[in-house]
């Protein structure tokens, strides 16, 4: 055939799944929007002080109770919260913790879920039974009870500990999803073909089964980030959340809840940041997913 050699042969060797990935991503405006937003968030998370400086208030803990719940205005572009602290500064300073909790929890939860879900789905039998029943138990185990016990025994209530607790209680959903798609993919012919090639089971799982089973899990993983950031607010509400001087969107939201009718801006701004974060992550995830799937790339 005399096709124009659009892609050099050498290009495709060694790169199993990435041909055209960048080209596909590059041409998507959504990809860029999400990347820009996430980079901005990352900058804020890394340097909240200097960023807050740009807007005039760089200390989230400089509070004036006499100026409690002031609506947005001069000096306080996002207004003040019930303690009279600058909402903007708090939102900016909360970014790091909230992003950390959201991402770390999701990452840990996914790590557990992928490991256990894959083992259960791939090996089946008693391993499956053990893991699946374990997941059932975790699901049914009262979160509050677990959280109290862990947070009470943990030496400090750091975002990491909190993430670990949240992750521990959230992996079963993912694990079940992964388990069921692994069960399905395991039966596909190309997997059998890889077995027949004498590849080790772990390699088959890692390179063939997992990439073809993760789609559904990743689809909701991004929404989970938002859920977790929100859940952290609930934790504070229940008395097992982060403690000062940690600043997070969750703590802000949970505080603002009591005053949202008086001072809606105190709920509004952290919520906006939360939404933007989640949507950027989802957009990024969707684009990556489409781009990673060769059939969706074109």
């Amino acid at each position, binding site marked *: 055939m005399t*096709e124009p050699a659009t892609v050099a042969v050498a290009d495709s060797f*060694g*790169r199993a799944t990435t*041909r055209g990935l960048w080209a596909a991503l590059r*041409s998507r405006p959504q990809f860029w929007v999400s990347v820009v937003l996430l980079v901005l968030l990352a900058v804020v998370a890394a340097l909240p002080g200097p960023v807050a400086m740009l807007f005039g208030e760089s200390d989230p803990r400089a509070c004036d109770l006499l100026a409690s719940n002031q609506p947005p205005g001069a000096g306080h572009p996002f207004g003040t919260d019930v303690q009279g602290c600058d909402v903007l500064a708090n939102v900016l300073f909360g970014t790091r913790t909230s992003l950390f909790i959201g991402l770390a929890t999701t990452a840990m939860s996914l790590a557990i879920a992928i490991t256990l879900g894959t083992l259960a789905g791939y090996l089946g039998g008693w391993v499956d039974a053990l893991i699946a029943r374990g997941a059932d138990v975790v699901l049914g185990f009262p979160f509050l009870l677990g959280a109290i016990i862990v947070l009470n025994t943990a030496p400090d209530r750091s975002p990491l500990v909190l993430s670990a607790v949240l992750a521990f209680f959230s992996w079963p959903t993912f694990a079940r999803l992964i388990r069921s798609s692994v069960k399905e993919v395991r039966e596909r012919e*190309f997997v*059998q073909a*890889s077995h027949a090639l004498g590849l080790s089971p772990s390699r088959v799982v890692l390179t063939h089964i997992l990439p073809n089973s993760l789609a559904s899990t990743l689809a909701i993983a991004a929404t989970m980030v938002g859920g977790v950031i929100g859940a952290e607010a609930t934790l504070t509400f229940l008395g097992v959340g982060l403690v000062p001087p940690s600043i997070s969107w969750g703590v802000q939201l949970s505080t603002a809840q009591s005053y949202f009718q008086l001072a809606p801006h105190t709920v509004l701004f952290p919520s906006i940041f939360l939404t933007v974060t989640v949507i950027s992550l989802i957009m990024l995830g969707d684009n990556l997913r489409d781009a990673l799937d060769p059939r969706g790339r074109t």
Partner: protein
Amino acid sequence: MSERLLEIDGLSVGFRSPDGGLVPAVDGVSLDVRDGEIVAIVGESGSGKSVTAMSVLGLLPKNAEVTGSIRLRGEELLASGRTQHDVRGRRIAIIFQDPFGALDPVFTVGFQIREVVRTHFPELSARDRRRRVIELLAAVELRDPAQRARSYPHQLSGGQAQRVMIAMALACGPEILIADEPTTALDVTVQREILDLLIRVRERDGMGMLLITHDMGVVADVADRVVVMRDGRFEETQTVDRLFANPEAAYTQQLLESVPRLDAAERRSSAGDEPALEIDDLTVEYRRGLRSVTAVAGASLTVARGEVVAIVGESGSGKSTIGKAITGLAPVRSGAIVVDGLDVARLRTRQAMALKQRIGIVFQNPMGALDPRWTMAASIGEPLRIHRSLRGRHLEARTAELLDAVGLARQCASRYPHELSGGQRQRVAIARALALDPVLLIADEPTSALDVSVQSTVLELFRTLQAELRFACLFISHDLAVVDSLADRIVVMSDARIVEQGARRQILLDPREDYTRRLLNAAPVPDPDQQRQRRQQRAAA
């Protein structure tokens, strides 16, 4: 028999690649099909046959760019915005090349056919629909159609799935049937029945047919006119007699020359004495719900080092299952499989993995056997990377070598499975199986989707490699001519059992069993005259 049913005019199709380039697949082809006419498209694998067929129904992926004109009884299909909805199924039916991919994995085949019947014949009662489905399944020669209707696609053999597709296409009673390699996975007896069925339908309803096939015997048997395709263009269009009598295009001549003939000529065998594969009293049972299906019953066979043993036989008789059982992919009920002196069932995981490296396998369904997320180069390179630890330049070189060996253009290396034609995928699968210089090669219909010229190249390669490496080979095929040209011994299977096995010439020239005789008789020969005679004889009988 002269009404113009389908007219294709200056059709060109190109695929847009992510970086904006346009890869041409079909380049300005024109063709027409009249009422009751069977037009065959033959030609090089990857030349655009399937793409042409698919563009008739507007089923190409979104990145395809189509120009030209396609008319059904004068009605333009391409331009009309109403995406041929009333045309699809009802007026034009299509049988896809990859029958597994074309069936919804989560519904029974009965349901899927019934659904088509309901769509096109809403007036039928549920009971009648059910009856119709059984009739259709019976018409495509499926055994126990009522029970087959309750099977899921993954429970079917390749040929069974293909027949389900045919039944589904016929369910709508179309004006024109586009059949993309409808009988490649069928054994010759069933193939003959199916072809007879298609001809009957044509006679009864005046259905036109666009038949894509590699089997010149089939072409000779049923086609009225033939189009030869290569590189996205039509090389020549001829009536079937003229084509076989005096082909004009050089490519056509080459094609016809490559057609293997079943002559059972004397040939030296390179078979050794030590057995590479011994199968003893193998029984394989699939559980299907509460019942179980015996796919292989008490099969025993041996393949010596350097020997090529072909398995031929009825579709669904358990040929693929034997191949799968050897690599541990089928539920063995009893019996022993010994490869290279090692009992497969007794091996620990590590040993089993090591053993599997020495077994190459080409699956019957090349689309399914390739990871959809991996490029061809990666798929072929995988065993090399892992078992041979090849990297970078060496890996590239070896992969390129393999691609060349199976006659694939190097551009294909960077494509994904869905971007390849059926034959291209099949060649990738072969290349992968050969990558590790196997001791035992199990090849399940490895050339079914290849055009005869590529097929002969591949077979040639096979022979060379085999002579060189002296691997044992279990070769599953429906094409008796291919079997003849390659095998040392032949095993004939029917209904889960081995009915007969013996040396090639003995089986081909002096079959003992009835079934084998029928099989041999049904094999089409690439000669229109001869086929016509056979058909008349059958009609007379």
